[in-house]
């Protein structure tokens, strides 16, 4: 069944982790949770594809994980606090992942934060992002 459109789906660049995504992304998130354990991280790094066989994932979810498509994982039900365990396993700082998700460079992202962050004006609804082109 296609996702029922919610009022918060209009927030641009945002995948709200609701009960539906929680159900859909159970496999992604429990896989990520397993990476809290050092021994699991080692096994995962040795053979990522085989490690994922232990989790119930759709083909799309598998590809998103193996391809480190950070936004796609969120769209398919991953939650950032969980996917952050995968990026940590990869040795990425959170700022590096944030830069990847926002299509920015790490330096560009860091500078934006020092300037006070991404402003709210122009970032409230999808229509504003469409207008931006």
């Amino acid at each position, binding site marked *: 069944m296609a996702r029922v459109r919610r009022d918060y789906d209009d*927030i641009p*660049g945002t995948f709200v982790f609701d009960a539906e995504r929680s159900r859909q992304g159970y496999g992604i*998130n429990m896989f990520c949770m397993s990476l*809290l354990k050092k021994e699991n991280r080692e096994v995962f790094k040795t053979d990522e594809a085989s490690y994922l066989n232990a989790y119930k994932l759709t083909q799309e979810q598998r590809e998103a994980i193996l391809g480190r498509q950070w936004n796609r994982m969120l769209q398919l039900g991953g939650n950032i606090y*969980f996917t952050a365990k995968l990026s940590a396993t990869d040795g990425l700082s959170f700022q590096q992942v*944030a830069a990847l998700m*926002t299509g920015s460079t790490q330096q560009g*992202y860091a500078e934006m*934060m020092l300037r006070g*962050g991404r402003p709210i004006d122009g970032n409230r609804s999808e229509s504003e992002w469409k207008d931006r082109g």
Partner: protein
Amino acid sequence: MAKIVAGVGCSHVPAIGAALDLGKTEDPYWQRVFSGFEHSKQWIKDLKPDVAIVVFNDHATAFSVDMIPTFALGCADEFPPADEGWGPRPVPVVRGHAEFASHIAQFVILDEFDLTVVNRMEVDHGLTVPLSLMFGKVDRWPCRVVPLAVNVVMFPPPTGRRCYALGQAIQKAVESYPEDLRVVIFGTGGLSHQISGPRAGLINSAWDKSFLDGLTNVEYMREAGAEGIEMVMWLIMRGALDDTFQETYRFYTVPASNTAVGHIILEPR
């Protein structure tokens, strides 16, 4: 009789914990953040609370997606700092107050708040960073802690109105406890931040400041970021304080990592 003597609002950015633990507090970037808590550390030292009720959220540490309790009260004798993937924070074990916590649980459940009782829980930066900011680097936390974990990871979290009402019930629960305890209640998390997706990095200072002004419920996610919704937890703290409590101290700075840092102290007039 136990009594709530103050409310504290405080961000819990994990990078703040890392900066403290790695000795970066003198870096100009971090100095700006920590300077806002110098007053508060002395203030709480003088206040000498017996117990802190700390409203916080778990970040995929003690709770995975196997179980997502909306409100979970920690009734254990102790809560070890969790390993969040890079080793537990080098901070003391958090000492609970099982008897007082169980009293609160029983009281508020009978008052129709269906909270979950947790008898074993490791606590992550959501709980330990506010303790560090307020108590500094210590060998032993100076008071006992009753953790109240709120789901803000999965939408929907409890509404602001529900949080506020729970705070009010907690105040009644505290005041019905026979032992003389000086209780401070912490609302933690926020302020505006979004760390997920293409809109990551969002900060809304105007919103944050109006929240600090009003401490009321509005359109959290749109205005304050997907993760900024944590701010509902401050409303439990606010609900536990009656109208005699007023702001006596405030601090606000951007950024700490990806987040706007807010801090407030509320005391009786």
